[in-house]
């Protein structure tokens, strides 16, 4: 009897895990699709920003298309091509999520550059992290943070003025910038863990309901069979 109960419990758990994975996968596919649209909107936004802020480079009275416009058109497309194709052909996979996270942070860096380093555009990084949290996968946030820290670290080495405004910043300055991203990460990671637990709990409840409903069906079938047997016996 106890063996049967244990079998049923493990069957329930397996069903709960399958339901949880199914729901998470469906959610992550939806978020992948959301990012496809977001990448396209950001791409157009980047081109508009470049055309508005710095359309031309000048030499006296002669003007040529500004490097920022080329970067927005060609560079912007290069950044989003891989995540978009992955979201279309490999939706819901771990690789897709991480490439999307890295590309989203690179899009932030591009937009910040195209808008002339405006402080306001830096909020794009924090908004993007919040969007990435929709995946309920805290590792995706780590990838995004590593890209931000890596960008600051490399620029801090090769042309520090672009990030810190001074030529000789302290070596640890990139950690200060990444620290603010990590500050947001703490709360988003907590939200991801909680969100995943809620989905798991909901999946466990659904598995339980399915199991009870299955038991009810078995009981009804047994009852119907018993009644049929009684009718046959009384006849």
């Amino acid at each position, binding site marked *: 009897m106890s063996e049967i109960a244990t079998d049923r419990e493990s069957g329930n758990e397996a069903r709960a895990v399958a339901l949880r994975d199914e729901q998470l996968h469906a959610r992550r596919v939806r978020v992948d699709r959301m990012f496809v649209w977001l990448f396209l909107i950001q791409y157009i936004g980047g081109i508009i920003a470049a055309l508005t*802020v710095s359309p031309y480079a*000048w030499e006296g009275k*002669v003007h040529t298309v500004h490097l920022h416009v080329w*970067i927005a058109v060609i*560079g912007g497309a290069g*950044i989003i091509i891989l995540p978009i*194709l992955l979201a279309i052909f490999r939706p819901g996979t771990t690789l897709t999520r991480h490439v999307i996270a890295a*590309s989203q942070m*690179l899009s932030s860096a591009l937009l910040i550059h195209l808008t002339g380093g405006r402080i306001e555009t830096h909020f794009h990084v924090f908004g993007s992290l919040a969007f990435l949290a929709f995946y309920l996968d805290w590792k995706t946030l780590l990838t995004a943070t590593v890209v931000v820290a890596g960008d600051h670290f490399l620029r801090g080495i090769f042309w520090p003025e*672009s990030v810190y405004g001074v030529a000789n910043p302290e070596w640890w300055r990139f950690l200060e910038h990444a620290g603010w991203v990590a500050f947001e990460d703490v709360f988003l990671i907590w939200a991801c863990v909680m969100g995943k637990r809620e989905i798991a709990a909901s999946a466990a409840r659904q598995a339980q309901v399915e199991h009870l409903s299955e038991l009810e069906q078995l009981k009804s079938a047994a009852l119907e069979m018993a009644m049929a047997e009684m009718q046959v016996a009384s006849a």
Partner: protein
Amino acid sequence: MKRRALVTALLIAAGLIWAATVGAMYHAVRHFETTPGRGAAARTMWPARSRIVPVRDRWTLVMLIHPHCSCTRASLQELERIIEMSDPSLQTYVVVYRPADFQAGWEKTETFEAAKHLQRAHVIVDPDGAEARLFGGFTSGQTFLYDREGALRFSGGITSLRGHAGVNRGSMDVVDIVHAKAQQGTHPVFGCAIVTTESEKRP
């Protein structure tokens, strides 16, 4: 099976494009931002033939700008900071380039308006860069600081990179010199060309 192989090949190609784009973009942006414009051949004393007449016994700052140069907005932001941090007696002139064969009004851009809104600054339109040539400047954002005797004390840019406002050696030097904390200064200038090799030969 064939479709799967095609998709994999497509994704690998996209991955290579992605990596190459990121690398190329960093290289292009770094090169663009860190390459200064042509440095000035500045006169050591105030150019006598200039239309600008410096006020006696006052420090005079002259900045040359190209009104359509997007990087110059950062230079003007830095100039605003310098004006705020300096003595009110500092005379500031923003010299705005306009090609001789272009209609009046061509220079009236957002950058021009930003220059006009600077406190205690005079904006002067410079047809064909004649004043720029007199001062020996070639690049938008080029700043000259002359002392009370008309001697050149600073020549250079006041931004750290192209289009980057923020604390930098150039603007700090200007403030230090005006406050007698430094004697001379120079710094690379970042911006569009005003006086080109071709226009340099004109009188």
